[in-house]
């Protein structure tokens, strides 16, 4: 975070703009306080209460958290969400890196980049519905293709083993182009002279990739990973539209469980405690990632 504001220098203006500035930041500050900070406090507070919206909230201490620790559905949701994140991020990062390197080597055409980005422009709901149709057991073109290949049909959204990998890959389809463009922008920051030097030394493309591209891309790749993991943990739309958590609990991810607790069972206290748990998990994962990838530091110098 470097401040790019012009340096004030020794020459100070006679007037400062405090009043005008307050007017200019007033709407944004209202939004910040009312829709970011207040809900943050309120969410934490609610997690220590029992509340069904109709009767006043009652303070219950850590009761919700105790219940959560003994709740098998919660632990299942954690497991399912983690599995989803691992598959989603693993595949997405590899595919996006491949696309980015291919673009770096082959073409920088805006058309190509636009086409690659297309799935990102449609909503998760649209992506979910298309693949619900393509992967339909009887009529889907995907399953018919499997049959042509002499393989068995797969209940992509109806079998407990396939449902999470399927949903993870649907979201890879939607996000891989965007992630690729982020990585591609990172590739543009690597000085081309480094590749020339490597070539003069007789290094192959593969060698250059592992000894130049990967180390120099690390800070940006680290940031991309942090941003996409945070997004990935919050999966909801695709699950809600395709399986609604089923079969049984096989795709009941944390956000869906939170939503059901709040809006189907009106247990807002418990739902808030679940959100706090999700927030804590995100903080720990982000912190670990930051440490492991050393995202803030660069090797460019």
């Amino acid at each position: 975070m470097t401040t790019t504001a012009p340096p004030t220098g020794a020459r100070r203006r006679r007037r400062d703009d405090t009043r005008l500035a307050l007017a200019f930041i007033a709407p944004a500050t209202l939004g910040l306080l009312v829709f970011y900070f207040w809900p943050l406090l309120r969410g934490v507070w609610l997690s220590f209460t029992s509340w069904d919206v109709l009767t006043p909230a009652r303070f219950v201490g850590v009761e919700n958290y105790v219940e959560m620790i003994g709740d098998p559905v919660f632990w299942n949701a954690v497991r399912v969400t983690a599995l989803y994140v691992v598959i989603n991020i693993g595949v997405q990062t590899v595919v996006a890196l491949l696309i980015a390197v291919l673009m770096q080597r082959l073409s920088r055409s805006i058309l190509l980049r636009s086409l690659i980005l297309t799935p990102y422009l449609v909503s998760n709901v649209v992506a979910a519905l298309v693949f619900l149709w393509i992967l339909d057991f009887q009529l889907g073109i995907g399953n018919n293709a499997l049959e042509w290949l002499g393989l068995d049909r797969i209940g992509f959204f109806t079998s407990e083993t396939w449902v999470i990998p399927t949903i993870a890959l649907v979201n890879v389809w939607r996000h891989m182009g965007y992630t690729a463009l982020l990585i591609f922008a990172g590739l543009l920051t690597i000085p081309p002279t480094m590749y020339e030097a490597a070539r003069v030394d007789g290094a192959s493309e593969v060698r250059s990739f592992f000894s130049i591209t990967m180390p120099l891309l690390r800070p940006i790749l680290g940031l991309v990973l942090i941003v996409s993991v945070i997004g990935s943990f919050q999966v909801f739309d695709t699950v809600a539209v395709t399986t609604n958590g089923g079969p049984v609990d096989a795709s009941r991810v944390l956000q869906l469980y939170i939503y059901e607790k709040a809006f189907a069972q009106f247990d807002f206290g418990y739902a808030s405690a679940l959100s706090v748990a999700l927030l804590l998990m995100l903080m720990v994962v982000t912190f670990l990632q930051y440490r492991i990838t050393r995202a803030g530091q660069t090797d460019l110098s």
Partner: protein
Amino acid sequence: MAQTARSTQAAQGVGAARASGATGARGGRRRRPVSPGRVLAWVAMVVILLVTLFPFYWILRTALSSNAALYVDPTSPGPVGFGWGAFARVFGMQSVEEAIAEGGSGASIDFWLYLRNSVVVATVVTVCQVFFSAMAAYAFSRLRWRGRDAVFSLFLLSLMVPTIFTLLPNFLLVRQLGLIDTLLGIMLPGLFMTPFAIFFLRQFLANIPTEVEEAALIDGASKVRVFFNLALPMTVGPIATISILTYIGSWNDYFWPLMVSYTDESRVLTVALGNFNAQTPQTGPDWAGLMAATLVAALPMLVLFMAFARRVVSSIGFSGIK
């Protein structure tokens, strides 16, 4: 923005030189000999493009088919039982009997209404959010006041708050304000700012040369006038970029409108689509209708993007994560 575009171009030139060098060619880039590695790379790229684009074709093909024909022949590459019935159904132009006969659920759906709701929500949110964010960004980059950096870091802090955490309490707030099932309720949390928009615009506003601003001030313009007549016009490129990104994001949002909206009154396209999917008729899903509805929801953003593709594509990354 001009700077971004220039650096992209520079990188393009450099890249072309590097690529031709990689295949061992001297001279013009068109006379590059085709190496097996390059062919393989292009094959991989084409496969990726096919995977990326095939679902869009399949939406169109299915939307133009009839359900009866789809059940008989699910694999033909072109539309089967060609017709516009699916679109008529989606826009509520078929009678209940007609709809059921064609494999619809017969439930009343009117995508004109949902389309209108989505347009209203995305437009109002984009205009307000970008304008208020630009004002704040101006205060954080061009005005001098005590506590500026401290307040700005508070805004940066809110970048770290994940959406999930604000959704439930925000729902309760909107409920207390009596705005459940209204478009205003859906729009309200997004009207004022997003930390990202402020951060994004601040970078560009900070780059306006001080001399230009001072010339205007010496001519007697107030800082408010400088904002409207100088700062905004000079950052019209980044403002357009962030507006398009905000519009697409708001259009595609599902979770929040799902919480707030209960009836057609406030139903936006994404929620209507999910609902349509849930109303599966006895005979099996109305795939033609669903894909027609999906196309209606997706097409406006694809068209909007096509109009501004160059700007959006080249801004991703330079601003996306920095």
